[in-house]
C-alpha cells in the first residue's frame, strides 16, 4: 500500500507487491508515503534514498500455522518441513533467529522451503504441507481457505511470544512494518502529522469494528476477503506509534536480530537518528 496525502489529506492508494515495484515507485516520485516492512525501509535509507520512517504500524504478526497440535515450542519444529514466505525478508530473518536461539540449525535440523502465499495456503489446505510461517492477513486467509477443505489450521506458535522468551523480555515486540515518507521536506511536517493522526484514529476504529472493516478493505483490495480481514485484526497487532518514539525499541530489536541476520539484509548497518521522522 502506498498513499499520497495531498492538501486536505485526500489519499490515493497504490498497491505494490514486490520490493522492486516499491523502489520503482519511490525513485520515480510516484508516491509521497508508503507502507513497507521495516527491513525494507532500512535498506532504502542505507542505499542513500531520501526516506524517513514515520511510524511503526504493526508489531509481530508472524505465526506458525499447522493443522496439528504436536508443536508447542520452536524446538519442536526439528525434523519438520516448514514453509516461509520471502527468502531473506523479515519473516525469514526472524524465524531463523528464533530457530538458532533455540538451538535448531535452520539449514540442517529442519527443512525450510520458500513458498509464496497462494502455494503455502493451497498446500496447507491439502495437507501436503504441515507447517508454514505466515503473517497477517495471510494466515487468516490460509485458515479460511483450509476450512473450506475441512482442514482446521491453528496458530501453533506466535513468533512475537517466542521472541519474548528468547530475549527474556516479556514486553519485547517485533517492529514489523510501518509507513515511510519520501522527500519529507517537500511534503511538509504538517501533512505527515495529519496523516499519522488520521491513520491512528482509523486503526483504532478498525480494531474496534473488525466486522465493519472487512468489507471496506475488500472493496479496495479484492484479494483480502472480508472474513479474513475480520479474523486477522485479532492477530495483527495494529498499533501505530511514532517511529521517533520507539527508536530505542527498534534499534534493540534489530541489534538482536543482526546477531544472526546477514548485514546486507538490513542494507549493511542500522540507520542513524536521521532515519526517524521527527514530528
Amino acid at each position, binding site marked *: 500500500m502506498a498513499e499520497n496525502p495531498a492538501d486536505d489529506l485526500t489519499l490515493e492508494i497504490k498497491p505494490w507487491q514486490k*520490493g*522492486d515495484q516499491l*523502489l520503482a515507485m519511490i*525513485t520515480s516520485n510516484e508516491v509521497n508515503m508508503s507502507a513497507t516492512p521495516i527491513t525494507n525501509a532500512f*535498506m*532504502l535509507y542505507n*542505499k*542513500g*534514498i531520501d526516506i524517513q520512517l514515520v511510524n511503526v504500524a504493526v508489531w509481530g504478526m508472524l505465526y506458525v500455522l499447522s493443522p496439528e497440535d504436536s508443536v508447542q515450542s520452536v524446538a519442536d519444529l526439528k525434523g519438520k518441513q516448514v514453509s516461509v514466505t*520471502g*527468502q*531473506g*525478508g523479515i519473516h525469514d530473518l526472524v524465524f531463523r533467529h528464533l530457530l538458532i536461539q533455540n538451538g535448531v540449525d535452520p539449514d540442517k535440523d529442519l527443512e525450510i*522451503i*520458500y513458498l509464496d502465499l497462494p*502455494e503455502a495456503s493451497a498446500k496447507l489446505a491439502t495437507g501436503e504441507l504441515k507447517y508454514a510461517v505466515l503473517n497477517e492477513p495471510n494466515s487468516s486467509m490460509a485458515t479460511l481457505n483450509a476450512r473450506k477443505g475441512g482442514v482446521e489450521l491453528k496458530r501453533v506458535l506466535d513468533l512475537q511470544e517466542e521472541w519474548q522468551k528468547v530475549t527474556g523480555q516479556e514486553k519485547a515486540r517485533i517492529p514489523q512494518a510501518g509507513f515511510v515518507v519520501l522527500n519529507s521536506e517537500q511534503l511538509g511536517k504538517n501533512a505527515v502529522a495529519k496523516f499519522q493522526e488520521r491513520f491512528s484514529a482509523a486503526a483504532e476504529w478498525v480494531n474496534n469494528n473488525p466486522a465493519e472493516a472487512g468489507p471496506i478493505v475488500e472493496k479496495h483490495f479484492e484479494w483480502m476477503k472480508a472474513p479474513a480481514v475480520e479474523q486477522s485484526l485479532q492477530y495483527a497487532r495494529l498499533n501505530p506509534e511514532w517511529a521517533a518514539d520507539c527508536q530505542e525499541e527498534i534499534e534493540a530489536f534489530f541489534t538482536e536480530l543482526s546477531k544472526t541476520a546477514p548485514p*546486507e*539484509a538490513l*542494507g549493511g548497518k542500522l540507520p542513524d537518528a536521521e532515519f526517524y521522522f521527527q514530528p
Partner: protein
Amino acid sequence: MQNSISNPKKDLAYKLLGVLLIILFWQLLSMRYLSVLVPSPAETLSAMKQLLLSGEITRNLRVSFERQFTGLLLGVMIGTATGLLAGLKRSLELMNPLVKCLMTIPAVIFVVMAMVWFGMGSVMAVFVVALLVFPIMHINVVEGFKSIDSNYLQMARVYRVPLKIRFQKIYLPGVMHSFLAGISLAVASSIRLTIMAELLGAREGMGQKIAISRSYLQTDHLFAWVLVLIFIVFALDWLFIRPVNRLANRWKVPD
C-alpha cells in the same frame, strides 16, 4: 558470418569501440543516478572482486553450470533424435504442433509451472532447460533435412546407394550445418533459461544470487553477476561455438 569484404582488423576495432561506448554510456548513467539504481563500472568491478575472493562466483557457477549442462544435453539429445526421425520420415511432422507450442509460450510460464510440479531446485531448472532446448534442436535438424538438394536424393535412389553411404555423403553433410547452428543457439538460450529458472525457483546458483542481490537492493552485486554472465557467454562463444562452426564448414558439400 564472414563475407568477402570483411576486414578482420577493422571489425575488431569497431567492436572494441562498441564496448568502450557501452562503458562510457554506463559511466554517464551512473553519474546521473543513485548507485542503488545504476552502480558505476568501478563499483561493479569492486563488487565482482569481492564475489570472486569470497568464492561465491566459483561455487554458484558450478551449480548453475551443472544444471545448464544437464538440461542442454537432454534437450539436444531428444531434439536431435526427434528431428532426425522427422527429417527421415516426413510423416513425423506430427511433432510440429508440439514444437511450435513450446516455442510460442513464454518461457517464464514453464518456469512457474515447473516449480509447482517439481518444487524448487535442480530438477525444475534442468527440466525447463531441456524442454525448451528440445524444440530448437528439433527445428534445426528438420530444417537441415529440408535444405538437402533433392537431386542428390534422387540420384542416390536411382543408383541404389546403400543407406550407410547415403547417410555419410548426403544426410550428414546436409544436416550438420544447421545442427551446429542449432547447438550454438541452444547453448546461448540454455544459459538464459538456467538463470531465469534459478531466479524464480532455486536456493543456490547464479540466478538465485541475482534474485537475492535484487531483494537486498545490492545493485552493484546484481550488475557484477550480469557481467560474469556476459563473460561466460563470450568465453563459450570463443572456446566452443566458433571451433564448432569451423568444424561444421568441413561438412559443407563441395559445389
